[in-house]
């Protein structure tokens, strides 16, 4: 029982991290109807910025305080993501108003490659550590209930807390504010949104900035676990099945989708793996996504696809 719970919790934590990346996709899709291929590149770029800034800043400013250094680095990285969002709107999206979704999709693919290159040119291409002071040591919970207790990584618990907080804030933003409503309106119809005075350009900057911030948070958490390296971009691929499962348009969907996949991966690996020679973890998510595409293409929480004939 203790072992099962351990696996379950491990899965939930991994799932939370998938969710964080998936969130970025959902945000941009909800607000512009664009599937943003650059999300993985944004995670890498933001993480690189954070890692290098926190390394450089003590030298630049002569600050010895680690926490202060990290805070400033985070601020700088956030500013950088804002500049990035502004440039994307200015140089790419502005010229593609009212275009087909596939045109915008290709544009994001271009942005992804550009950002990959730019990030490594500016910040270097080695593996960099991020240390935001997350505890590394595991703890044992429920010592009294199970013999030996359950082994939990505190770092994962913190990460889960951050992710949960982010979800609450974003849900409030989308559902309760007029800007959130405007974002959803822009996703449905550019021209109509403009006709009622919604500033398309500003909305796009906002949403790419918010997605950039999510990427930054995801990048920091993944980076502090694994180190910042190019393979972070492939995280985006891990997030794909998550969004298919949760629904492209749903913030809670991204979270629950991530959790299901995280738990599914771990449990199937541990309990089914031995029978088929292992390796389930790698393809489990995609298999699940495929099943969903066949039977429920809008995902668990996505908006129902309505087609009038």
């Amino acid at each position: 029982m203790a072992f099962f719970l351990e696996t379950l919790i491990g899965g939930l934590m991994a799932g939370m991290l998938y969710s964080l990346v998936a969130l970025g996709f959902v945000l941009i899709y909800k607000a512009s109807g664009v599937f943003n291929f650059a999300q993985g590149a944004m995670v890498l770029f933001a993480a690189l910025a954070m890692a290098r800034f926190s390394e450089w800043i003590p030298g630049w400013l002569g600050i010895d305080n680690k926490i202060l250094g990290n805070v400033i680095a985070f601020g700088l990285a956030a500013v950088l993501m804002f500049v990035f969002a502004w440039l994307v709107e200015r140089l790419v999206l502005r010229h593609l108003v009212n275009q087909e979704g596939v045109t915008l999709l290709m544009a994001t693919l271009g942005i992804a490659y550009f950002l990959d290159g730019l990030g490594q040119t500016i910040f270097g291409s080695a593996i960099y550590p991020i240390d935001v002071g997350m505890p590394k040591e595991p703890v044992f919970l429920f010592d009294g209930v199970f013999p030996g207790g359950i082994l939990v990584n505190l770092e994962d618990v913190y990460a889960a807390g951050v992710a949960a907080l982010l979800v609450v804030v974003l849900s409030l933003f989308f559902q309760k504010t007029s800007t959130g409503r405007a974002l959803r309106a822009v996703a449905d119809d550019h021209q109509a949104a403009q006709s009622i005075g919604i500033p398309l350009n500003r909305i796009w900057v906002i949403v790419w900035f918010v997605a950039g911030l999510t990427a930054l948070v995801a990048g920091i958490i993944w980076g502090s676990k694994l180190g910042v390296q190019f393979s972070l971009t492939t995280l985006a691929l891990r997030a794909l099945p998550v969004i298919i499962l949760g629904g492209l348009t749903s913030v809670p969907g991204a979270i629950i989708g991530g959790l299901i996949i995280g738990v599914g991966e771990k449990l199937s690996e541990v309990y089914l793996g031995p029978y088929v020679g292992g390796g389930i973890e790698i393809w489990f998510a995609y298999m699940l996504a495929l099943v969903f595409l066949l039977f429920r293409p809008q995902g668990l929480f996505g908006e129902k696809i309505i087609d009038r004939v």
Partner: protein
Amino acid sequence: MSDQKKIGDVILDVKNISLRFGGVNALTDISFNVKEHEVRAIIGPNGAGKSSMLNCINGVYTPQEGSITFKGKSFSHMSSRQVAEMGIGRTFQNLALFKGMSVIDNIMTGRNLHIKSNLLLQALRIGPAQREEEKHREFVEHIIDFLEIQAFRKTPVGTLPYGLQKRVDLGRALAMEPQMLLLDEPMAGMNMEEKQDMSRFILDVNDEFGTTIVLIEHDMSVVMDISDRVVVLDYGKKIGDGTPEEVRNNEDVISAYLGTSH
């Protein structure tokens, strides 16, 4: 009824507008004006340039020549958004609603320009933001009552029948509290009963809110009943302008619609 309605001064003045797409002259030297509180129709056969005219006023197209003056302010290079800020709302010929959103949310988006409180307060629903949201919601409820779509408040717009979607489109434009409303074929594709409903709504909007209305339609009979004055376009040129009675007896208009024998 039109005797009691007080029609004011000129609110929109369109002067010598020409619009070309490559070699095609969509509009040639069009001038007309719209007075405050009136119902002004732009009619003409298919391809006459009616929608192009509306899109010029709405800032979607920028005409190569001519000027458009709204409330004494002249503009030629305006984005749709700036036009919206000046107080001009519009509806669309091919519905352009936010399909996945509910009726309420669709109409609430129309209030966007009026919402002032800051993002954080809105998200938390506290203090002035809460009161403001309630105020706007009340206004939107009023519009919903007015358009008789109370039963569909929470329904995603994409699932509603066509005639009702047209009403939501109108409701969203009304939520902006526009001084002037541009209606692009509000009755296209409707049956007789729906057309009568829509005519009634248009007249009521004009009466109750005092909104100036510019509408495009190719169904002559409807237009003649509800408009104060009518502009007739054909092949991008203006061929008639006046009261429905005058237009009906205009030789050019008759030949444009019925064809001439010569």
